[in-house]
């Protein structure tokens, strides 16, 4: 186990505000305390590494001795083959390309935009049902159900199955959020069971979609395109599981961090209420200021590489602290200031290079709609506790609850 600053970053006590730790880290752009991972915290170094073909995302290239305190989590996916997130080209490219076909341009340029009405309807429905304006938990009542409902629509999960789906999704999400007080064996068993059940459910759904294809992504993925461009059932399962988990774990945090930031910057919240077109630049700045994925813990060099004067040996574990790069004063003026008018906002919040966030267009749209609607409909909203209680997870960082109150929920 690591000591000092790395354990401080993982330490729950620092979850609400890890930024001072990142600032300290940046004094040593490539930090290594002798045994653990090599930690990269400065913008240009991270940006360069994300485009460096000597870096692998495939855990099989990790040396047995890499000593990564976050490595345990990878094994939980073992029930399925690694998703393209954890593969290198050419496998990565093939799977990502096929997954993109029903999702984005050039084949499906209108998929995401075509979901606008659906998204708006879900947001409206959730806000309508917030109940007592004096005690709203924005995570449980809004930020969580929104993306799960959406990903179900996208994949083509039938409405009546959504409750079952939610339970699995919750369990799997919890597995990414290790609770130090829970019995690890028990948690692992529950995670494994959920994964199996979800896998079997998806396998059944895929069979069904092969026979009766619909307009959803699973149908289109299952149909394949030509001989060399179709996914095996196992590949399809891990891709679907990846879309499910990545597709909402991050959006929950993006929306919650967003509302938290807005409530801490009431002038910006007020501006958003009056100028909904602020949503797009505001979400970009949010991805810089409070990115839902704080760090990428799964990179390893295929050969000894030199970064910022430090040689990182082949097979080492590396952490790229995106959230720290995003606040690097060498790259951004006044980095600790939340400024939606910032013009030059090439952040690392969605990664960069071949593994840059696959769901970015959807995540952006979801966050833009959600925040605009919340700003518009919550009258005089305020935080009931600041900082809010955070989730355990240091990688996918965000509040576990966001308790707020407002005078009134305006009608739609």
């Amino acid at each position, binding site marked *: 186990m690591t000591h000092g600053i790395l354990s401080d970053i993982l330490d729950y006590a620092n979850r609400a505000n890890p930024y001072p730790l990142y600032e300290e880290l940046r004094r040593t752009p490539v930090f290594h305390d002798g045994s653990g991972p090599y930690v990269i915290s400065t913008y240009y170094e991270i940006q*360069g590494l994300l*485009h*460096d*073909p*000597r*870096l*692998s995302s495939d855990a099989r290239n990790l040396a047995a001795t890499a000593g990564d305190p976050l490595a345990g989590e990878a094994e939980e996916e073992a029930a399925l083959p690694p998703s393209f997130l954890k593969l*290198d*080209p*050419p496998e990565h*490219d093939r799977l990502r390309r096929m997954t993109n076909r029903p999702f984005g341009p*050039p084949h499906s340029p209108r998929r995401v935009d075509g979901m606008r009405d659906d998204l708006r309807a879900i947001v409206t429905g959730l806000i309508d049902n917030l109940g007592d304006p004096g005690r709203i938990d924005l995570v449980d009542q809004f930020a969580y159900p929104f993306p799960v409902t959406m990903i179900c629509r996208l994949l083509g999960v039938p409405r009546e199955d959504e409750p079952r789906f939610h339970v699995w999704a919750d369990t799997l999400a919890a597995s990414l959020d290790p609770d130090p007080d829970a019995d690890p064996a028990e948690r692992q068993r529950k995670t494994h069971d959920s994964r199996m059940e979800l896998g079997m459910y998806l396998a059944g759904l895929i069979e069904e979609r092969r026979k009766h294809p619909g307009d959803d992504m699973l149908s289109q993925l299952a149909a394949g395109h030509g001989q060399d461009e179709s996914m095996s059932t196992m590949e399809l399962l891990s891709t679907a599981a990846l879309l499910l988990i990545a597709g909402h774990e991050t959006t929950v945090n993006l929306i919650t961090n967003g509302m938290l930031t807005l409530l801490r910057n009431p002038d910006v919240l007020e501006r958003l209420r009056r100028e909904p077109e602020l949503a797009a630049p505001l979400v970009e700045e949010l991805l810089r200021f409070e990115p839902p994925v704080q760090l990428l813990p799964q990179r390893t060099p*295929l*050969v000894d*590489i030199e970064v910022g004067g430090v040689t990182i040996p082949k097979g080492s574990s590396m952490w790229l602290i995106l959230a720290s790069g995003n606040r690097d004063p060498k790259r951004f003026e006044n980095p600790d200031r939340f400024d939606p008018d910032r013009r030059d906002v090439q952040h690392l919040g969605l990664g960069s*290079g*071949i593994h*840059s966030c696959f769901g970015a267009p959807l995540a952006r749209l979801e966050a833009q709609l959600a925040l605009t609607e919340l700003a518009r409909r919550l009258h005089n909203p305020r935080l009931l506790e600041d900082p809010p209680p955070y989730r355990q997870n240091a990688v996918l960082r965000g509040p576990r609850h966001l308790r707020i109150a407002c005078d009134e929920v305006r009608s739609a």
Partner: protein
Amino acid sequence: MHEVTLDHLKREGRIVVVGASLAGLRAAETIRDKGFTGSLTMIGDEPYEPYDRPPLSKGVLLGKSTAERTALPRRRAIDAEWRLGTAATGLDMAARRVRLADGDEVPYDRLLIATGVRARPWPNAAEGELDGVFVLRTRDDGAALARRLDAGPRRVLVIGAGFTGSEIASACRERGVQVTVAERGDAPLVGALGGVIGAVAAELQRENGVDLRTGVMVTALEGDSTGRVRAAHLSDGTTLECDVVVVSLGAQRNTEWLAGSGLGAGPRGIACDAGCRAFDIRGIVTDDIYVAGDVARSPHPLFGYQFLSLEHWGNAVSQAETAAHNMLSVSTDRRPHIWVPAFWSSQFGVNIKSVGVPSMGSEIMIAQGSLAERRFTGVYGYQGRVIGAVTFDNARWLQFYQQQIETTAPFPVPFPTVDRRPDGHRPVPADFPDPSVPTHGPTITLSGYSPADRRMTFTPAGH
């Protein structure tokens, strides 16, 4: 003419930009960004406000966009006096005045020349004027060609398989129009990317139904009695029936208007220093005349101070910004234009990008991906260092190779990479055409000995 101080220049000086297109516009915007409040005049011989050319051979020919909708987005208001549809016809360097076609003269304190290039016309003027014969450089060219493609021609002949010619052929195929490409070299794109990549481009064209003919020249175009083009004669003795011909033989620099001005302007462009200041004919740098974009030729420290002329969109933008910055700065604040050349193209559904100067490379290795899958990164080596790189549907890696070029990293690329295939471990000759054999470029020769009778002779493309 008295020299104005920088402060005075910024407040009430006169800046004139000749060439109101990409480089001209971006320079003008930068000039205002730098706080210039004096008078700014934009002179352009085309009647249109600045527009973007890359879409002309892509979206416009496909009917996805129209030539009228290519106006360049404005980064800011520039509050300029526009003299559009008026060519500059001369320059009086001593009096600091630009002469216009309408007889006017415009005085300047600082001049930026961004007159770009024009399409090299078909060498036989009468044949070139046949109805159905096109070039593609301007908005009008794009609109006219798109209209003709809309009408459903029986066969299009594209002469020259460089980037523009290949993009035109691609657009034809995407529209289902029969197209023949005639190329004097051994493969498409061979001049820019060499024979190894050229072979991939050739395969790409043939697979997409292009009738690609390499190693041939078009020797004559033939019209019917109404003056419409009907056939082309090829050097291999064949005749090809076609009702549209696109001449895509590269470009000529728009420098004729500077003849006799004393500025170092000629068929190869206007030579300037790394700070974008133009040279006069004596090779002495001027203080008040700057150059940017396709018309410029500037030395690049990274490439042995070679004078590079780049017909690249990104170069035009970056060089314009540098020129604008420098013309409003004292000498110690000036910046060099050390932009690493970068280019993109899209054809036959493939996204092609390059950085550095691939054509300087003697060898190439496929560092990632595979030629057979047409998804790869090719790295060019020159005297033991990385000098350029090209990607086919692999652009996200390019930034890394750009850094390798910038840091003069060793070649062959010694380290393993993700997606390195067995055949990518060894470099092979990049296979550029022998530079001593003329392709479509013009030839320039010098003759005479004494400074007075030393002459430069310009021989247009080798027909």
